[in-house]
């Protein structure tokens, strides 16, 4: 991996602010969607799309590309924002999100949106899908890697653990799972709805290589990815401690913004905060 310079970090921080502004505008324009979980995953998605993934926006189905799978499909605003900024489709198209005849569906659809790799919405299927991808890469002796971003709410789903067992059975070391541990799901705190802790120990018990990081710290994200690349014979789970709604003070850690768009006044406040943040980088 390329050395992580100050300039690189500053550039990624700016890009992440840009993505967060898109997320706020898209969900505000649609007056629906899921901003909170999009913003918590934003730095992980930024790190992957703007520094790690070998993808080609001019050839989205290039067979040797790395695969990015968003298992927590409701967070697709961050995916669409990253794909648009990366050049997969025009940035202006982001404002069609959740509208009739749009390529940007409320939850990801395969085959419609350039760069989208899976359909998600019903939780808990993405890691299994990623296992299939990683198995195919191995059969074909390909070097491409698979990155899957899961929500912590998805840790409730039985299929997530079926996939966890299968990935370790087959020693899928080309598979890296990021668990966006923002601690909030639709109806409340994860620990109130269905306690997940000790979560790292669960993944370790399923024979994964497990790392716990600050999911908003680019250096920690890159270090985790490097360690995942060095790890042989086991998939890596990165439990990324994040803040739901990260980047906008009144949205942070608020259950409400799991699935609620901002009002007109909130939109102005949110964008002002993000612009101030950008200026400070």
């Amino acid at each position, binding site marked *: 991996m390329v050395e992580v310079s100050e300039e690189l970090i500053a550039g990624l921080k700016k890009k992440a602010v840009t993505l967060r502004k898109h997320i706020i505008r898209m969900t505000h324009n649609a007056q629906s969607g899921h901003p909170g979980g999009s913003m918590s995953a934003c730095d992980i998605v930024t790190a992957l799309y703007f520094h790690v993934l070998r993808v080609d926006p001019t050839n989205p189905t290039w*067979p040797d590309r790395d*695969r990015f799978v968003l298992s927590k499909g409701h967070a697709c605003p961050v995916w669409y924002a990253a794909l648009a900024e990366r050049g997969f489709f025009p940035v202006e198209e982001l404002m069609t999100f959740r509208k009739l005849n749009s390529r940007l569906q409320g939850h990801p*659809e*395969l*085959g419609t949106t350039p760069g989208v*790799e*899976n*359909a*998600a*919405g*019903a939780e*808990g*299927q*993405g890691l*299994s*899908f*990623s*296992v*299939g*991808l*990683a*198995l*195919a*890469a191995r*059969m*074909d002796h390909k070097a491409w890697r698979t990155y899957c971003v899961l929500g912590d709410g998805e840790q409730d789903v*039985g*299929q997530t653990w*079926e*996939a966890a*067992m*299968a990935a370790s059975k*087959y020693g899928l070391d080309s598979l890296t799972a990021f668990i966006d541990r923002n601690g909030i799901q639709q109806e409340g705190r994860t620990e109130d709805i269905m306690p997940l802790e000790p979560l790292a120990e669960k993944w370790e018990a399923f024979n994964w290589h497990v790392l716990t990081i600050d999911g908003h710290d680019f250096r920690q994200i890159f270090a985790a990815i490097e360690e995942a690349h060095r790890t042989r014979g086991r998939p890596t789970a990165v439990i990324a401690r994040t803040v739901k709604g990260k980047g906008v003070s009144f949205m942070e850690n608020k259950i409400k913004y799991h699935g609620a768009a901002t009002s007109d006044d909130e939109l102005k406040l949110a964008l002002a905060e993000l612009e101030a943040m950008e200026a400070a980088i």
Partner: protein
Amino acid sequence: MVVVGADTTESIKTLDFGKAFPDRLIQLGIAEPNMISVAAGLAAAGKIPFAATYSVFGSAHTYNVIRQNVAYTNLNVKIFCSHAGLTVGPDGATHQINEDIALMRGIPRMTVLVPADGPETAKCVDAAAAMKGPVYCRFSRTNVPTVTSSEDGFAIGKARVVRDGFDLTLIGCGIMVARCLEAAQLLEREKISARVINLSTVKPLDLATIDRAARETGGIVTAEEHTVVHGIGAAVASAIASNHPVPIAMVGVQDVFGESGEAEELLRKYGLTAEKIVEAAHDVVKRRDR
């Protein structure tokens, strides 16, 4: 081609594929939702995965995974399921799924196949592998008489007239094709000439062959080892109602669960016999001539 399995590879014989191609049989344990999504991932990376297990697990237990990860994605996944219907026998109602055709034909983009016997099952494997897109194919555990020949033509979407006739048409799928042929012989003794159609593709439905049967014979009996709720009877009734309505009767499981018993005993108790098809034929002829 890759096969994914769920702890049933020996009983449904995919283990033989694994013996020939050890690296291409993926054993995923009793975790069918994962099996279907893994198949979808394999397909997304260019493989032709066959997900094979018992029908109750490969359809009902995994329904929303098939819907989102296989059909909505339009991926090239082939779900081949044995142990469908009542003839699973002594295992009882938990294993006797009589609703899988209904479930699968309701999903957009899904092709649904029900072969009549061994040779036709082999043709379904080849045809499914040769086409792009999701396929669900269901067949039974029990021994069935061979009613097709390896020389018979086979194409997905084409129903085959296996016996010609003029007074009414018997449309069957799976193990009920043999029983339709048997019923046609019984009807012949009464000077009733019955056409028999093997409806091995339930979706997409061969509307032309069904419409021709309605117009030329004027009455239809359907026969399926499946509930009459949203099965092939419902599919055929809907097709003829839109084109050329004629009297129809449906032989099948009457919206009830099965129970333990031997295959033949169950087929008799639940009315899936040649005699019941003959009774249904009499009913159709009577209604038509009224």
